[in-house]
């Protein structure tokens, strides 16, 4: 089975790095900092905070104290499950933990790896004005919306051309992010045989686009095309896509473990302070780059032959087929392009947040919200809807706790369905 071959290749690609780390120490660490109230100020490190690590059965392993940069670090004897406890009495006056109940955290660590354990401090609300905050959040929202849009266009076009709601689309995003991580960390060769052949992230990203597009094409060729040929019902195809989603997700968990990673490049950047908001160069890059790509996609849909064919098939498959459009070819293109875009979306998502096994699934739900909002099956709808969802999620943090911001996005999904089920740009269907 071809799928297995691809899977096998990916597994070897992903297995080797774990081995490459073996001679490293097992290290846990972190940084304790007060988040600056105003965007133009540096975060303030907190010195002298004590963190005690003990094993799961209560034996103390050691205590670390933060240095003048707020960093702490402790070498552990072995991998496994540990408990980290922050001594709250060592925190300066008036600087509480964001959640005092989480002064004790347990974490898992693999032998030979290092990981961060974070104790976020409470935010000290400064005299930041609402306008500045709203502008800032809107910019963040646009960035998030762009990423959602890029990943979701494929989802929407696949639905439009084949009628399939591809639940495994989130995993295509994770695939992109993970592949770029491996490439930028170990390089293509390093991924296969071990050693360090790291590729700069931008090049890795472009490579990822190609790999993800190929993966999308193969996914269609090996799975979906066969199922379509066999006349499988849409519902059973939907269940198959869910099966793939779980399978991929747990393969990644199996290979990478539950911890999140960051790209080696562009990890820390100084923010550029503009009057109403501040932004890092990588965020500027993300917004500009994704705007270019999205405009490119729009132009391609509008101008090129295959783009027009895509819209025609999405609009009315039978009509398109009878007017001589090769529907299978269009579907193949949609999968390839959709896979590539989802992969790039994954890289950008990993760049703004972190790379982890569940990231795609989290983004999938936001993609659903965006795509449904814009109108299932329409490319421009996906774009518009995703932008709205992105901005909405970020600005909602003005009012609701950050860990609940996605709840709001999912809630509007339900409200939209209640009021305008065909979405902003969708059209109602004819019956009979």
């Amino acid at each position, binding site marked *: 089975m071809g799928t297995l071959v691809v899977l096998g290749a990916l597994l070897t690609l992903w297995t080797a790095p774990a081995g490459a780390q073996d001679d490293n120490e097992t290290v846990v660490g972190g940084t304790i900092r007060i988040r600056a109230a105003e965007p133009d100020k540096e975060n303030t490190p907190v010195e002298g905070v004590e963190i005690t690590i003990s094993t799961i059965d209560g034996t103390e392993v050691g205590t670390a104290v933060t240095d003048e940069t707020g960093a702490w670090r402790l070498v552990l004897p072995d991998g496994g499950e540990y408990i980290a406890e922050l001594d709250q009495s060592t925190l300066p006056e008036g600087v509480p933990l964001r959640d005092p109940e989480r002064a004790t955290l347990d974490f898992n660590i693999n032998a030979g790896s290092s990981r961060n354990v974070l104790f976020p401090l409470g935010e000290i609300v400064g005299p930041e004005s609402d306008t500045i905050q709203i502008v800032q959040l809107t910019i963040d929202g646009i960035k998030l919306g762009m990423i959602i849009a890029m990943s979701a266009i494929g989802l929407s076009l696949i639905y439009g051309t084949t009628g399939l709601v591809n639940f495994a689309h989130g995993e295509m995003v994770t695939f992109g992010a993970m592949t770029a991580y491996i490439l930028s960390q170990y390089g293509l060769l390093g991924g296969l045989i071990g050693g360090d052949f790291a590729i700069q992230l931008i090049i890795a990203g472009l490579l990822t686009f190609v790999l993800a597009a190929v993966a999308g094409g193969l996914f269609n060729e090996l799975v979906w095309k066969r199922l379509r040929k066999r006349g499988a019902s849409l519902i059973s195809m939907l269940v198959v896509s869910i099966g793939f989603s779980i399978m991929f997700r747990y393969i990644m968990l199996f290979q990478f473990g539950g911890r999140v990673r960051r790209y080696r490049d562009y990890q820390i950047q100084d923010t550029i302070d503009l009057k109403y908001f501040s932004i890092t160069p990588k965020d500027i890059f993300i917004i500009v780059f994704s705007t270019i790509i999205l405009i490119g996609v729009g132009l391609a849909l509008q101008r090129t032959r295959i783009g027009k064919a895509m819209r025609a098939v999405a609009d009315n498959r039978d009509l398109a087929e009878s007017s001589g459009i090769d529907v299978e070819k269009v579907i193949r293109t949609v999968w390839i392009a959709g896979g590539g875009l989802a992969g790039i979306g994954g890289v950008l998502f990993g760049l703004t947040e972190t790379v982890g096994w569940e990231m795609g699934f989290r983004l999938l739900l936001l993609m659903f919200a965006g795509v449904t909002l814009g109108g299932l099956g329409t490319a421009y709808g996906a774009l518009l809807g995703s932008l709205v969802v992105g901005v909405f999620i970020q600005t*909602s943090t003005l*009012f*609701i706790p950050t860990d*609940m911001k996605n709840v*709001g996005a999912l*809630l*509007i999904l339900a*409200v*939209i369905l209640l*009021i*305008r089920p065909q979405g902003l740009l969708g*059209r*109602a269907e*004819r*019956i*009979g």
Partner: protein
Amino acid sequence: MTAEAAPEITARSVPALGKRFFARWLDELLLGSALLLAWLLFLYAVGDGRGTIDGALWGLAALVVVVAALYNQVWLTAAEGASVGKRTAGIKVLDRETGLPLGLGRTVARELLSPLAVTALKDELGQGLHDKVVGSVVVRDAWRQPELVAGDAAAARAALADVSPTPGSRKPDPILIAENISRTFGGLVAVDVDHLEIQRGVITALIGPNGAGKTTLFNLLTSFDQPTTGTKAFNGETIDDVPAHKIANYGMVRTFQLTKSLSKMSVLENMKLGATDQKGEGMLSALFTPLWSAQDKEIEERADELLARFNLDHMRDEFAGTLSGGQRKLLEMARALMVRPSLVMLDEPMAGVNPALKQSLLDHVKGLRDQGMTVVFVEHDMDMVQDISDWVVVMAEGRVIAEGPPTSISDNQAVVDAYLGAHHDSALDLGDDS
């Protein structure tokens, strides 16, 4: 359009008025603000506004708007639902003051809508339909279908002899009236019919080139789609706001262009499904077999009779999915008859049926009329239309362009033009079986 006075469709139910009032323009506005305010409500409920005065005010405002916006979806459904129980007895109980069905939300309705409602009720009483005023309620015999009167081709054609063969012409005894019905999809006008009447006890054919809007018109008439404008009446009563699933209870039943046989149910189960007002269809009563077993047996007998008539009795216990295309069409028609309809609307009943079965289908359609039912059907094959229909309505580009007895249609200039626009071969080739 001729200048003669159109018979007004005045007997409209009050929910219709209310719904139109809200639905046509207020809805958009209300739903828009509801979205916004519901979001604010959420923010204030879980966000930092919790416990503040303006949080509560916002919440209250949002609630009011949401309730108002959901008004026609929730409340009207509830009010209508209350009258469903009475429907089985063949009567509709209305509040005398408001003319609303007695039931949920009556008080709210009275406050909101009484000025409109009283006029509407006056109109209705003026019509002199089977109304009886008892104390503070009106018992209205609205659901009783007229008895079916057996007919035949001669009688049907005779009844239409005096009708002028012009689009939108008045019929002596219309069972279905559509007035100013239009439907637009985006910018595209799919249907725009000024006036259309369907004569009772007659077979009416609906023809027209592909994309003429025939199926869309079917959907609009049977409430499977909502018209952008316009109103329609069945047996003298508006059915504008009757949802699709209630249309069958009025005695109007339709079939579909793509046959909808329920594949993984047996032929018999398909038939039994068609019977309306089954006692065992409630979730709770379903648990008590004695409540419904007797009725179920009756239904089964009726189903068996119909199956025998349609030559499907040998397939009785097979899955409907194993039937041939023609047999499915037969099954769909037979199943529709389980509803005991007075109007049967067939969307391309002959499409994809082999010639042997076609004749038998034709005979069945004629048989429906001879039992007193009214038939409307969409068809492409002109020979067939000539053979079985008593009246032909021609549609093109969403409009009714011609009407008349079948003999007069093929030399009607408008019809020839319409078809010539679509096909360049010959004026009389009305076939289009794609």
